[in-house]
C-alpha cells in the first residue's frame, strides 16, 4: 500500500479536485483505492456524495472505536472507497496532543490495520502546518503539492521545504509539486512558472489549467474524468496521474520509503 498526501499550506489551490481525480484514475486502473478526507470542510466527501460524518468524530477514531474499517464508505465507483470527513477534525491537533505517546505517528498507526486492503491511499489534507500535517508527512510516501504560479504560493513551497528540511525524520518523504489553476492567458503565470521550475527541479512537468469544468465538479459531485472524459483538463489530470505513478511506483531506486 502506498500513501500519497495531497497537501498545501495554502487553501484554494485545487487540492481537493486533485485528490478526487487522482483517486478516480487510480481505481479506474484497477488499484484498490481509498480517499481519506482529513479536511474538516469535507469537500472530497461532498464530491463523492457522502455525508461528512464519522460516528464519534476524530477522537473516537483515534481511540479506534470505531475502527477505521467500520467507517469506510463505498463510492459510486468500483474499487474506490472513502473515509469521510468529520467536523471534529478541526480540533484534530488538540486530539493528537492528547495521544499518550508519539502524537506524530497517530495517522500511521490508524492506517496500519488496512494496509492489505488497499493499494493506494490518498489523503486529502487540510491546509496549514500543524501536528496533523506532521502526521501526514510521517505516514505518506509522497506529497503531491498543488502550486498556483504566484509569488505567494511559491513562498509556501519554501516554507514547506524549510519545514521538511529541518526535520531529519522526514528526509525520505518525496515532494512532488506541480502547477495548478494555471491561466494560460496571464503572462505573469508563465514567467513565474519558468522561474519556479528552475528553483524547484522536483516540479512535475504537468500543469493543470484553470478551467470551468473543474469548477463544475461541485455541481456534478462526480470526479471530472467520469463526466468530462474528453476534456483537455481531464487529459491534464491523466498526465499528472501518469507522472505520479512513475514517481511513486517506479522500481529504479526511487522508492520513497
Amino acid at each position, binding site marked *: 500500500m502506498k500513501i500519497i498526501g495531497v497537501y498545501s499550506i495554502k487553501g484554494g489551490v485545487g487540492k481537493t479536485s486533485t485528490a478526487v481525480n487522482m483517486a478516480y484514475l487510480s481505481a479506474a486502473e484497477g488499484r484498490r483505492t481509498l480517499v481519506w478526507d482529513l479536511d474538516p470542510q469535507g469537500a472530497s466527501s461532498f464530491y*463523492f*456524495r*457522502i*455525508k461528512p460524518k464519522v460516528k464519534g468524530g476524530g477522537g473516537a477514531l483515534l481511540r479506534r472505536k470505531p475502527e477505521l474499517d467500520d*467507517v*469506510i*464508505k*463505498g463510492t*459510486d465507483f468500483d474499487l474506490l472507497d472513502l473515509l469521510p470527513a468529520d467536523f471534529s477534525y478541526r480540533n484534530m491537533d488538540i486530539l493528537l496532543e492528547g495521544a499518550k505517546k508519539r502524537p506524530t505517528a497517530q495517522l500511521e498507526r490508524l492506517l496500519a490495520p488496512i494496509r492489505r486492503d488497499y493499494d493506494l491511499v490518498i489523503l486529502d489534507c487540510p491546509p496549514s502546518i500543524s501536528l496533523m500535517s506532521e502526521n501526514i508527512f510521517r505516514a505518506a510516501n509522497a506529497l503531491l503539492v498543488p502550486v498556483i504560479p504566484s509569488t505567494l504560493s511559491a513562498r509556501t513551497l519554501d516554507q514547506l521545504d524549510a519545514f521538511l528540511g529541518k526535520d531529519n525524520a522526514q528526509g525520505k518523504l518525496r515532494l512532488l509539486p506541480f502547477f495548478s489553476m494555471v491561466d494560460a492567458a496571464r503572462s505573469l503565470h508563465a514567467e513565474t512558472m519558468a522561474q519556479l521550475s528552475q528553483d524547484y527541479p522536483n516540479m512535475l512537468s504537468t500543469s493543470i489549467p484553470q478551467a470551468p469544468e473543474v469548477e463544475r465538479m461541485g455541481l456534478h*459531485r462526480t470526479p471530472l474524468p467520469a463526466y468530462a472524459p474528453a476534456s483537455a483538463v481531464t487529459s491534464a489530470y491523466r498526465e499528472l496521474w501518469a507522472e505520479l505513478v512513475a514517481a511513486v511506483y517506479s522500481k529504479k531506486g526511487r522508492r520513497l520509503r
Partner: protein
Amino acid sequence: MIRSSLREQSEVVPELSGAPIAEPIAGPVARSAARLDDRYAHGASERPAGESLCRYLDSFDWSLYQAGVALEERIAGAAPRELRWLDLRNDGVVIARQTTNTEPGFADALPDGPVSDLLAPILGIRRLLPMAEVAIRAQRLRVLNEDDKTVVRIVIEEASLRGPEPAAVALPPRLRLLPVRGYAREMDDTLRRLEQSLGFSAGEHESATPLFFDAMTAAGCRPGGYSTKLAYRIDPEQRADAAAKAILHGLFDTLEANVEGTVKNLDVEFLHDLRVATRRTRSALSQIKGVFAPPIVEDFKARFAWLQQVTGPVRDLDVYLLDFPTLRDSLPEAMRDGLEPLRDWLIGHYAEEQAKLAEALKSPRFQALRRDWRAFLEAPTPRDSSLSGAQTGSPAGPQSGPASEPLSQPASSMSAMAPQTPPPPPADGLDGERSIKSVADRRLRSVYQRLRREGRAITHVSPAAELHELRKTCKKLRYLMEFFESLYPSREMRKPIKQCKVLLDNLGSFQDLEVQAAHLAETARRMHAEGACGVATLLSMGALIRTMLEGQQRARQQFSKTFAEFDSPTNRAAFERLFGARGVGAAAARDANA
C-alpha cells in the same frame, strides 16, 4: 439469516423463481425490478443491459469438478476473457480470477496468474474443453439515496444455455444484490422491499444454486460422468456370460468415449485411456475363460490386438515427449543439449504418426470392429451356451429373435438368475451359465497360483523373458481383481490390488526400460541413417541408453525383495481368504509337495 446469503460482494446469487422465462427483456424479474424503480424515488438504471458469454471448462475426465471447483470463462465484447475459479463446495464463490487473451486449453499456455496457479496441478497434461456455454444478459440497477448516491446495486441476470441446437434453453433468472460498503441499513431496507414486491421470503435464497449446476442440468451434462475407474456392481449369482458382457460393455463405453478425442488429438490422455480400455478388453476376453465360444474370443482378441498395435506408435512418441525433460535431466549437463535433435525428430514424426492413427480410427476395419463388438455385447445372453457361437455378427439368435420378441432379452436373463432353476450342464465345456462368482473364484485362484509359481521360480540368473512373463500374469491378476472387486467383501480387495500394483511397478520399470533402451537405439540408427543427427546427439542418446539400462538393473536387483514382500505369509493369507479356501488348500498342498 438473510445476510449470510448476501455477504459476498458479488457472487452469491439468490434465485427468485424456478420457472424459466422466455422473453429476454420483459421477464417477471425484470418487471418487478421496474416496479422497484417506481417505488424508489431515486432508483436508476446504471447502464444498459449488457450481454456476456459464460463457458464452463473442464478436462474430459472432469478433474476440476472432482476437485470441487469449476472454471468459468466470461467473454464480454472486446474485453479480455476473464477466468473465474469457483468453489463449488461453497456456493460457487469466486476464489480467484485472471484474464487471458486466448482461448484456454492447456495449463502451461495460460498467462501467469492466480487462476493459472490453481489450475496447473489439477489439470495436469489434460486440455480444458467447454462443457456448457451460457449467454447471460445482465442489467445493473442502482438504488440511490437523497444525495443521489448509490447505496445498493441490483443485478438481474437472464441466462440461457447455448447448445448445438439453434433453440437456446432458458435458465432460471437470477437476482443479486451487491452491497455498497458502509450502507448496510440501506441494503437491509432494499432487501425487505424486494421481498415484498417480488413475493419471496428470505429463507428461499439461502438455497441459491450456482449457475454452474443449472447450466450442467440444462446441458444434460453429468459432471464427473466419465471415469476410467472400474467400479462394476456385479451380482454374484448373475450368469457368467452376462456379467462378462457387462464388464466388457463398460470397457467399450470408455473406449468409444475416447475415439473422437484421440482422432482430434485434443490431449494425450484420450489415446492413453483408449489404449488402457483396449488392453483391459483383451485381458477380460482371454482371462474370463470359458464363458464365450473360443472362435468368437479368438476373433475379437485378434481384432483388438490390431487396435492396440495401430495406436502404439503415437503413444510411444507421447511418452517420449512427456518424459523428455526428465530424460534430459538424467544426463550430465554437458550432454543435455545433444538431445535436442532427438526432440525435434520426435516432434517431426508426430504429425505423420498421428495422421496414420486418425486414419486407422476412421477406417472401415475399425468401424466394423465397433459394430460387431457392440452387436456381440448387446445380443441377448443365450439360454443355451452352445448357440453363442452362431450369434456373432447377427443380432438375431436362432432361439429367440429380439426383433420379433422384444421381451425375450430381459426374460432370458431374469430366468437365469432365478435360484430355483439349476443350470443345465454345459454342452460344449462352456461356463457361460455358471454364476459369475464361481467363475471369478476359479480364475482368480488359478492366476494367483500361477503368479506365485512363476515368481518363486525366478532367480538371479533367470532370463529376462521370465520376468516379462511374470509381469503379464501379474497384470492379468490385477485386471481380474479389478473387474470382480464387487463380488468380494468391500475393501478387502483393495490391499491385494495395491500389492499387485507394487509388483507391477517393479516389473514394469524392468521391462519398460529395456524396451525403451532398445527403441532408443533403433531411433538412433534411423536418425543417423536419415542424417538427422550429429555425433554429439548420438553420444547423448548412448548415454541415455546407459542410464536406462542401469535403471533396469536396479529394478532387477529390487525384484527379489519386492516379490518376497508380495509373497509374504500375511499377504498369502489375505489372497487365500478372498478366493475360496478349498482351491487354495489344494494349491497349498501342491506347494508343500513341490
